[in-house]
């Protein structure tokens, strides 16, 4: 094969990274709200289920920053990611084989830590491979393959969990980590460590400078508002479908999950490219504008199947956010060595927004009905859009700015 533009090993490395994203998304699908359902099938009480889920969430929360700093300091990002993947395998196997209190607690703690390490590692490898100027396209590809993986996994695991056995979900998760590991090593050496993402020790002045960067603070607020609006929409839509649809509810909810994933798969590369050519602001405005539209559609659409159309709009915001988060983190840490720490700090904003979202939306739905909850979420989305419009500057690096590559 003759190289056309990109040298041959780079193309193979890029394909390998595509596959890593695909298999990793598969592996993460089982660890969402399904864990509660799974534990119910093993006769767990609600109190115990609540306990282990809360512990898992706290673990993730607490591990965000240390994991980000760890990945920044690691010279071989693939090695760190591989260890984290082995933890995911262990967690999945523990859940599948020993669904008792102590093993499940260990499994969810392991998974919490591992997921905080894997996401920044993949972002760092992507940055190392594409460089800050072409990062948008690479992230668009990541998001495309991740959403395809997520959608397919949801379909297969949903069907398998219902018709075969709920254990199937976690056995499949463990099995899918193997090709993920193989793809990770197929990326090859040399593309995963650049001065952008490697810090030899925790550089406090650099960290302080990053934390006082106005763009960073504004974007943190934007991220938090995005998830404050977005996180509760799918669970509430799922509840609404269950309330309206009776027998076909599972199928409609599956569509509500997969339609946005399909849109993310379609749109992400375009989002990544446009962020590079037209700038970050138009993309951010598009993604954040989709949130209030999504909320209003979900509030106004009647019946169950029409909600799937409302969910399609969520694909637009999902595609934008999936690319924008690591892209802006790279922009904000250009020339420093704190890319992953920045990602971790922004992810904390994600967590904060998402946690508050589900709690508050649940309370509003309980008190005033699901429509009111959707409208509240839409209002928060509109607020986020206004913050992006008025306060968020353009962060695209121009050719003139010196880079560290």
């Amino acid at each position, binding site marked *: 094969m003759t190289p056309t533009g990109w040298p041959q090993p780079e193309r193979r490395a890029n394909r390998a990274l595509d596959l890593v994203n695909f298999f990793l998304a598969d592996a993460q699908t089982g660890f969402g709200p399904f864990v*509660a359902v799974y534990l119910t099938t093993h006769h767990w*009480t609600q109190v115990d289920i609540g306990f282990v889920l809360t512990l898992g969430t706290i673990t993730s929360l607490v591990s965000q920053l240390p994991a980000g700093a760890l990945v920044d300091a690691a010279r071989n990002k693939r090695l760190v990611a591989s260890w984290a993947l082995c933890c995911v395998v262990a967690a999945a196997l523990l859940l599948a084989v020993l669904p008792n209190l102590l093993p499940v607690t260990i499994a969810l703690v392991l998974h919490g830590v591992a997921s905080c390490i894997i996401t920044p590692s993949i972002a760092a490898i992507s940055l190392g491979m594409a460089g800050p100027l072409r990062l948008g396209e690479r992230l668009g590809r990541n998001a495309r393959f991740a959403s395809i993986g997520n959608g397919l996994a949801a379909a297969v695991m949903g069907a398998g969990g219902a018709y075969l056995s709920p254990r199937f979900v976690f056995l499949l998760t463990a099995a899918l980590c193997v090709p993920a590991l193989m793809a990770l090593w197929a990326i090859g050496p040399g593309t995963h460590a650049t001065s952008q993402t490697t810090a030899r020790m925790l550089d406090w002045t650099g960290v302080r400078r990053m934390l006082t960067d106005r763009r960073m603070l504004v974007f943190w607020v934007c991220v938090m508002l995005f998830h404050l609006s977005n996180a509760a929409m799918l669970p509430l839509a799922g*509840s609404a479908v*269950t309330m309206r649809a009776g*027998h076909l509810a599972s199928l409609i909810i599956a569509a509500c999950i997969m339609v946005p994933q399909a849109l993310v798969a379609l749109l992400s590369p375009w989002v990544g490219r446009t962020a590079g050519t037209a700038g970050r602001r138009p993309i951010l405005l598009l993604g954040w504008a989709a949130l209030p539209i999504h909320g209003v559609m979900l509030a106004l659409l009647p019946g169950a199947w029409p909600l799937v159309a409302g969910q399609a709009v969520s694909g637009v915001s999902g595609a934008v956010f999936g690319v924008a988060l690591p892209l802006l983190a790279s922009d904000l840490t250009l020339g420093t060595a704190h890319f992953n720490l920045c990602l971790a700090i922004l992810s904390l904003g994600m967590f904060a927004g998402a946690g508050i979202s589900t709690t508050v939306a*649940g309370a509003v739905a309980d008190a005033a009905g699901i429509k009111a909850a959707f409208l509240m979420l839409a209002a928060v989305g509109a607020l986020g859009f206004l913050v992006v419009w008025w306060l968020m500057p353009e962060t695209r690096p121009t050719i003139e700015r010196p880079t560290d590559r």
Partner: protein
Amino acid sequence: MGRFATALAITGILALNAPLAANAAPPATTVQQVPPEAAEPILGRSVIDAEDKSIGRLIDVLVDADGHPEAAVIDFGGFMGVGNRKVVVHWSALRFHPGDPKHAILLEMTPDQIKDAPEYLSRDKPAPVVIPAPNPAAEPQGAQSGK
């Protein structure tokens, strides 16, 4: 002082031992083997409707002061955990079959009848119990149903 205290202690010990001396042994409990065909554990079991389709899982039981089950909490609906709702149904709507090898619990209502019941969210608030409609003998007992 020492002698007085000792006398008090001995009296105390004798007083404590007196009722024990009267009944030689505590009341005995017996162990009875109950086969799974006679009585089955129900937490986490699948709940099916009249068409043998699984609609959810029984995850909790509400018991009144006399120890009689009033209602059952069923985790109902959803896909991979998304959209699951906890609905409370009156105990009289459930049929148990411990002898059945599949141990399925039959709910004598269709998903359409319980689908828009209010969700059971808090243990401290009144539980919205769905009561089967057509039975004229069923008395709504201080429970809310429907919207």
